[in-house]
């Protein structure tokens, strides 16, 4: 079963616009991570935010975490055609080894 649910499932925007993706989860977490996947290949780690953090930035990426609402958002600013990919949130629990539980993903298309 999947812990997280991404919203929307698909998003289409123009180059230069901002893209916002949301993730909701069900159980207590230690951390939440966002990954990108191009064309069914491997996952690329984007950013990790811990349960005691509220916001984190990395380049054009901004992630927020609201543990009271069990939700997170990923904002990509000034999007580029190369940002076209599927984006997944994954939650890590408190158990050793940090097993990740993924959501179903948001498919982002950025049109040039």
């Amino acid at each position, binding site marked *: *079963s*999947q812990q*997280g649910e991404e919203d929307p499932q698909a998003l289409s925007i123009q180059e230069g616009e901002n893209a916002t993706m949301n993730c909701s989860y069900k159980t207590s977490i*230690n*951390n939440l*991570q966002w*990954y990108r996947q191009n064309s*069914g*290949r*491997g*996952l*690329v*780690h984007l950013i*990790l935010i811990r349960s005691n953090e509220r916001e984190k930035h990395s380049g054009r990426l901004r992630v927020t975490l609201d543990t009271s609402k069990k939700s997170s958002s990923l904002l990509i600013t000034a999007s580029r055609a190369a940002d076209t990919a599927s984006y*997944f949130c*994954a939650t*890590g629990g408190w*158990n*050793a*080894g*940090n*097993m*990740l*539980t*993924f*959501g*179903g*993903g948001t498919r982002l298309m950025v049109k040039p």
Partner: protein
Amino acid sequence: DAGVTQSPTHLIKTRGQQVTLRCSPKSGHDTVSWYQQALGQGPQFIFQYYEEEERQRGNFPDRFSGHQFPNYSSELNVNALLLGDSALYLCASSFDRVGTDTQYFGPGTRLTVL
């Protein structure tokens, strides 16, 4: 610095056969996790190996088994293949230490069961 590598890239098998997938972790990493990703879905955790033992297991039948070698590389074995086992199999490596929670994924092995 080599990242996570997996072999083979693609594999075609028929129902009932057995398959072995291989993974080499990122340099310095000691923990390997395996995930199954069906088409159009997010990855699902299969199991994790640390110190050559299975440490955690997801909701997968015993047909799925694995192994970790002293050099930290790992294998995923699937017996009695079913059509539903067709998926992208992803290996992820990490370093087992408090505060190092990021998992790095390999490119995956695409398994097709006919």
